[in-house]
């Protein structure tokens, strides 16, 4: 297999992969909102309520490590 062919396959599959990811992301966004896990629209308020002493908007948020612990 020469570099040309490799280039062709890589491009094809990577594009498909990214497109699938993008659509999956759309599904994920709406699904997680429906299930009540996340409220994305609420995040828009980060720009509005941005005083240093105001409460963080994203309260559902956890760090990756905390997340792992919760999953267990």
């Amino acid at each position, binding site marked *: 297999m020469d570099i040309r062919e490799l280039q062709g396959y890589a491009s094809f599959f990577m594009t498909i992969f*990214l497109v699938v990811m*993008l659509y999956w*992301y*759309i599904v994920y*966004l*709406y699904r997680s*909102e429906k299930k009540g896990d996340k409220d*994305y*629209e609420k*995040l*828009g*308020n*980060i*720009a*509005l309520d*941005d*005083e*240093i*002493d*105001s409460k*963080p*908007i*994203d309260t559902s*948020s*956890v*760090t990756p490590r905390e997340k792992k612990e919760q999953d267990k």
Partner: protein
Amino acid sequence: MQSNAALEYDYSVAKLFTYTTILFGFLGMLIGTLIAAQLAFPELNYLLGEYGTFSRLRPLHTNIVIFGFTLSGVFATFYYSAQRVLKVSMAESKFIMFIGKFHFWLYFVGALLGVISLLLGYTQSKEYAQFEWPIDIVIVLVWVLWGVAMFALIGIRREKALYISIWYYIACFLGIAMLYLFNNMSVPTYFASGGLGNILHSVSMYSGTNDALVQWWYGHNAVAFGFTVPIVAMIYYFLPKESGQAIYSYKLSLLSFWGLMFVYLWAGSHHLLWSTVPDWMQTMGSVFSVVLILPSWGSAINMLLTMKGEWNQLTENPLIKFMVLASTFYMLSTLEGPIQAIKSVNAIAHFTDWIPGHVHDGVLGWVVFMIMAALFHMAPRMFKREIYSKKLLEAQFWLQTTAVVLYFTSMWIAGITQGMMWRAVDEYGNLMYSFIDTVTVLHPYYAIRALSGVMYLTGFLMFAYNMYKTMTSSRELTEEPQFRSPMA
């Protein structure tokens, strides 16, 4: 880092970058106006001897506007808004304060050296990547410092979710880093030849068609990650904040982000249509340019819909006017670009004045308008005074809007006229016009463009004056305005 009552956002670095935004904006537009006038009135080429010709000044104009004005604006708005959406003050970390200040001073010194080196004619002759290797190294350092400040600030944030503006700033940082590094790869001849010749001179690592590919992969995407991505970051913060309306659809903003990231990089080869780069790349560039309309308009429509139900603000608040017009021009130029990237259109448009016309409706209408609006929004909060004059702001808005319209309409006509004349043949198949015919015919359009330049520059001076007065002598504010910026 416990928060306490006395804690405040620290704007000292944002202020410094605000000053340089104004300084470089004025310089860049002044030179731009001069070279526009030179095309209409060639005698103006001799004002500064060897250093005043169109050819020597043109890279100075582009570089000052890109790396001076726009980058300063990006840094200023970043150091202002990132603190706020992350809910953390720079003053909380001595390290971040130091990096921020160092970032500014290194940037300023580097920018001055860059200007001088271009005036003297030290250049790699690759568009928007003209700086020779020592300046490149300074730019890389500046960029690294920005990255350190950015990620350090993110590291100590209180707001765990990263607001969409931060996404765009991160993308700007990564994109420009990658593009700039690869396109500026060069070998300094002094070191490779055992110490012969000028130490500043270098040769590109790539040759011919390869160099062209890398250059326009860079050139196009420097526009993407310098003129689009960080400006979108700005509007996603400043438009909601100024209007008091949250983004129309936060989910749409996230989707357009990934769409933009994926599609933009492919479109670079549309600068090389009908050239010697392989055909499939040209087609790819063409196709992806058209696809690019989707994520661009996704963002732009999202911005406009943010104003839904609040359109009255458009008449009452000049800053909203600036930002809404900016997103409208964003829509215009992201539609115009793909049209020019269609191969048959490109055959006429390429090499003509339609291209600078396209660049300028994007830059004058979108980038500069957005940056000015952002700085106007920041000023009352940074300097704790209201904006000096609403009247001046209104006048500036209309003057500059007229200027942009004059600019791009004259360049559309000029470009299409020239493109058609180059290919016009008579009944026997001979070329109808000699080249000089296609130059002299453009004189009126060049004159109109020079006029529009003068108007826009005047508008920018009004902005600078208004800002200066706001900083120094406007009425003081007792408390920070929540949404709408107060103005007299």
